[in-house]
C-alpha cells in the first residue's frame, strides 16, 4: 500500500524515494490526480494549417482528434464514437471533411457534430429517439492556445491557460514567438523508451549539472562547445510560474551580438527585437543569457542549442519541443518536434533542421546518452532496495535547507534565478508533482 504522505514529505525535503520512477501505484495516482487535471500540450496550430486538417494525439490513454473546421476553428475531440466506442479516426494525421465510424457509420464533422447516422428514422424514430445534436464527439473539457500551442485539460474547472502559464509565458515567448508570425512545428519524431516520464521532464527543467559529463562526447568531437563545466556553471537556472529552465552565459556584447553568436541571421534578430518586450530583450542584451533547456509542468519540454553544422564551422541554433507522453510507470513515448520561426530564411531553416537532427530527437547525439541513463534509472528503481533508497536531490541547499547562494540579482526575466549548479528547479517541479498527487481525487 502506497504511503503517499511519506513520499511527498521526503520529496519536498529533496530526498526522492527511488521507486517513484517505476511504481505502478504512483503512476495510477499521476493518471488520476495529475493528468486528469493538468493542462497538457497536444499539438501546434501549424500542424493543422488548412480547414479539415487533423492530427491525433493522446493524453495518456485518451485519444483526441485535434482538428480544424471549415471556419478555421480548432477543436479537440475525444476519439471515441458515441454509439459503441470505436475510434472514429485511426490515422495519425490527414485532411478529412468527415470522420465516419467504421462500425455503424455514425458520422461526425470536424467540429464534432454528429451529422449522420444510418436509418435515423427507422432505427431511432428520428429525433424522438436520438437527438443528434446531443451526440457529437465529446470535446476536451478545456481547450486553449498560446502562441499557437494547443493545450487541453481533462478538468472542466481548469484555470484559464494564461493564468496557469503565469510568468513562464515570458520564457515561452523566447522559444515560440521570435516574430509576429510565430513558430512552425515539423514532426514529431516518435519513439518509445523504457524510462519513467518524470526523469526527462525534471532533467530539462534544470539539470545543468549533467551536461558536462553526460554530453562530454559531443564537446570532444567539436559539435557543441558550450557544455563544458565552466560554461554551464556560469549559466543561470530560472523558475517562473509552472516552468523553469537553464541558460548559458553569452560572451560580452549586446542583443544583436548575443543572438549572432548563437547563429541567428540579422533579419531574424531584427524581428526578435521588434516582437519581444524590453524585458525579454534585456535578458539577452543586458543580463547576457541565452535560454537552453526548459520544462513546462508537467510534461512539455523545450531545448535551444547552437551546434556546428558543417566543415566551415558554421553554428546554427535550433529549437525543439518535446512531450514526455507517459505509457506506463516504466515506459514513455517521446514526441519531439523541430520548431523554427515561420519567417526564417530557407538557408537558416535547413541549417537549423540539420542542427536539430544531429543533437536531439530519436537520433540526436545529446539525446542518445540521456535516454541510456534514464532507462537504467527506471529499471534499477523497480527493486526492493530502491524502495529503501532516498535519492539526494538537495544540490544548492545547506543541511538546514537554506540556499547556499543568494538568488542571482542581475537577471532580467521574471521568477527566481540562481547562478551555477543546483537542483532548485527539479525540486520545484517535484513540489508541483506533490501538490497534484496530494489533491483528493
Amino acid at each position, binding site marked *: 500500500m502506497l504511503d503517499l504522505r511519506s513520499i511527498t514529505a521526503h520529496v519536498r525535503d529533496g530526498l526522492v524515494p527511488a521507486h517513484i520512477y517505476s511504481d505502478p501505484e504512483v503512476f495510477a495516482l499521476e493518471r488520476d490526480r495529475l493528468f486528469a487535471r493538468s493542462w497538457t500540450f497536444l499539438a501546434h496550430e*501549424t500542424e493543422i494549417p488548412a480547414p479539415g486538417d487533423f492530427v491525433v494525439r493522446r493524453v495518456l490513454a485518451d485519444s483526441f482528434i485535434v482538428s480544424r473546421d471549415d471556419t478555421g476553428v480548432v477543436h479537440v475531440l475525444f476519439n471515441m464514437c458515441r454509439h459503441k466506442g470505436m475510434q472514429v479516426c*485511426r*490515422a*495519425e*494525421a*490527414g*485532411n*478529412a471533411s468527415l470522420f465516419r465510424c467504421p462500425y455503424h457509420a455514425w458520422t461526425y464533422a470536424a467540429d464534432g457534430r454528429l451529422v449522420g447516422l444510418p436509418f435515423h428514422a427507422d432505427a431511432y424514430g428520428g429525433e424522438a429517439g436520438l437527438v443528434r445534436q446531443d451526440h457529437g464527439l465529446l470535446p476536451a473539457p478545456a481547450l486553449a492556445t498560446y502562441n499557437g500551442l494547443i493545450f487541453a485539460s481533462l478538468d472542466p474547472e481548469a484555470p484559464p491557460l494564461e493564468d496557469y502559464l503565469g510568468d513562464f509565458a515570458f520564457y515561452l515567448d523566447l522559444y515560440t514567438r521570435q516574430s509576429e508570425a510565430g513558430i*512552425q512545428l*515539423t*514532426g*514529431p*519524431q*516518435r*519513439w*518509445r*523508451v*523504457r*524510462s519513467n516520464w518524470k526523469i526527462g521532464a525534471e532533467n530539462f527543467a534544470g539539470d545543468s549539472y549533467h551536461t558536462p559529463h*553526460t554530453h*562530454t*562526447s*559531443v564537446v*570532444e*568531437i567539436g*559539435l557543441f562547445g558550450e557544455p563544458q563545466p565552466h560554461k554551464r556553471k556560469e549559466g543561470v537556472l530560472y523558475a517562473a510560474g509552472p516552468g523553469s529552465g537553464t541558460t548559458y552565459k553569452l560572451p560580452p556584447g549586446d542583443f544583436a551580438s548575443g543572438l549572432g553568436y548563437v547563429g541567428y541571421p540579422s533579419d531574424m534578430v531584427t524581428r526578435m527585437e521588434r516582437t519581444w518586450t524590453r524585458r525579454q530583450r534585456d535578458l539577452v542584451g543586458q543580463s547576457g543569457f541565452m535560454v537552453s533547456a526548459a520544462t513546462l509542468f508537467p510534461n512539455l519540454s523545450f531545448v535551444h542549442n547552437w551546434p556546428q*553544422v*558543417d*566543415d566551415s564551422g558554421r553554428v546554427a541554433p535550433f529549437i525543439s519541443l518535446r512531450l514526455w507522453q507517459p505509457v506506463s510507470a516504466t515506459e514513455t*513515448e517521446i514526441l519531439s*518536434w*523541430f520548431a*523554427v520561426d515561420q519567417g526564417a530564411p*530557407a538557408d537558416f*531553416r*535547413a541549417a537549423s*533542421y*540539420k542542427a*536539430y*537532427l*544531429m543533437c536531439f*530527437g*530519436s*537520433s*540526436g*547525439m545529446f*539525446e*542518445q*546518452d540521456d*535516454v*541510456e*541513463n534514464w*532507462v537504467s534509472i527506471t*529499471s534499477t528503481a523497480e527493486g526492493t532496495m530502491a524502495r529503501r533508497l532516498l535519492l539526494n536531490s538537495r544540490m544548492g541547499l545547506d543541511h538546514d535547507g537554506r540556499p547556499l547562494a543568494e538568488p542571482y540579482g542581475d537577471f532580467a526575466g521574471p521568477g527566481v534565478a540562481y547562478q551555477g549548479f543546483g537542483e532548485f528547479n527539479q525540486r520545484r517541479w517535484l513540489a508541483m508533482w506533490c501538490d497534484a498527487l496530494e489533491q483528493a481525487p
Partner: protein
Amino acid sequence: MNGPAAPLPYTHEAHQLAHQFLVEEAHLLDTQQLEEWLGLLCPDVRYVMPVAVTRSRRAGADQGPRPGRDGRYGSGDDGGNGMAHLDEDLFSLRRRVERLATEHAWTEDPPSRLRHFVTNVRTFAGPGPDELSVQSNVLLFRSRGDTRPPDLLSAGRHDVLRRGPDGGWRLARREVHVDEAVLRTQNLAILL
C-alpha cells in the same frame, strides 16, 4: 524513388555485386567497424530515414512517407509530417562515427549486439551510367545489456550505388523506410 519496372536477373553480375555490397556493408555495421563503413560512402552521400506516419489509404498511405514539395524533409513545405529520424550528409555521419569512437558515448558502451538481416534484394540499372538502384529489406536485432528485452527494427531500403574511381561500388544515397510510426528502440545510435 522507384526503379524501372523489372529488376535485373538474379544471375546478372551487377545484381550479384550489389547484393555482395549490402552483405559486406551489413557485416561492417554488425561488427561496428564504422570508420571502414564511412569508406563505403560517396563524398556527396545522402542518408535519410523519414518518419512513418499512419495515414488513410485515400490519403496515400501506400506511398510511404513524403518529402516536402522541394524534395527535402524538414522544410516545413510538405503538407504533412515531412520529418525524418535521420537526414544525413558525410559531415554529420562522420560526426556520429567520431562520437561513438570517443570513450564517452555512454549509449553504446557497453555496445549493443547488432545483427542486420538483409533480404529481398532487387537491383535495377541506373539512374546514372555508373549507378545501380538497389532495394532491400532489413531487419535489425539489437540487444543491450543482459536484462532488457531486445529491440527489432524492420525497414525497406532504397539505395543508389555508384562506381567509385577505383572501380568499387560506393553508397551515394539511402532511403530507409522504417515500418513503425513509433520506434521501439531507445535511440538511433545505430544505423540501418
